[in-house]
């Protein structure tokens, strides 16, 4: 039975997601290693037998482990892999915002104390003036 163009299309797509275990930096779509050819053949047969992509992927994982998937599955142990970068982003954002807020707070505090000092000076000047006037009387 010759594969239909749609089946070949699916095989092509699926093969790019599977790592060739003999030549680890190639997918089984790119590689011509014996095992890659065999695994492509397996995948094609299963496509022709009407299996879903997910079923074929899990067939591969059952035999070769998750390492065969270029795109790791969403699972407990892989949560760090998927979530890590975002967590890092949030962490950095928090640190930056906190630093920025603190600087603002420090700045407004110096402004407040500056106003207080000015008020003191003014009050002192007023008191002195009153004292002078009292004496002149």
């Amino acid at each position, binding site marked *: 039975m010759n594969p239909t163009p749609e089946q070949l299309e699916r095989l092509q797509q699926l093969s790019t997601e599977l790592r060739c*275990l003999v030549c680890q930096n190639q997918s089984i779509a790119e590689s011509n290693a014996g095992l890659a050819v*065999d695994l492509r053949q397996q995948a094609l047969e299963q496509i022709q037998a009407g299996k879903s992509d997910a079923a074929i992927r899990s067939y591969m994982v059952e035999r*070769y*482990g998750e390492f065969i998937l270029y795109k790791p599955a969403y699972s407990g142990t892989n949560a760090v892999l998927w979530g890590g970068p975002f967590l890092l982003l949030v962490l950095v954002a928090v640190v930056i915002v906190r630093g920025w807020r603190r600087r603002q707070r420090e700045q407004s505090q110096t402004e407040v104390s500056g106003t207080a000092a000015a008020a003191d000076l003014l009050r002192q000047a007023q008191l002195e003036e009153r004292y002078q006037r009292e004496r002149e009387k």
Partner: protein
Amino acid sequence: MRRSFLLVLPIAVLIALAVLLARGLQSDPRKLDSVLIGKPAPHIVLPTLDGRQFDSEKLVGQVWLLNVFASWCSACVIEHPQLVQLAEQARLPMVGLAYKDKTPDTAAWLKEHGNPYAQVALDSDGRTGINYGVYGVPETFVIDAQGIVRVRHAGPIDATFFAQQVAPLLAKAATP
């Protein structure tokens, strides 16, 4: 206190990262954990070199060794003396899986290097190999009396293999 913590933090992160990456460099990316460990060994039914049929179910009840080899495999020559020696001690049944090999080539190779196997199953299209997650030859599996895969070794076995990986399993199987 806070300041000094903030000063040390980047250095600590850097060191942690360096250790992580150094470990990554030292680990062998070809050594993959087999997902089969602790799982039932895939059932094998294959013709044998002597024209009979190998059925892995007949071995249930004893610890046995499955060695994946091929006449085209150069590393197999390296480990082969270990297997021959193991066979002489006759500690457990040893089955050879001739992986993607031509039958006359397998026969000639075993004649030349010695045949340590009780049976040689012919996996000429490599399908049984795929079921066992074989990605390189030689590979060695040890299956326990319950038919569970206990050991998987990718690459040639060395002199320590039997004592370290197989003997403990045999000892465990011997004590009821």
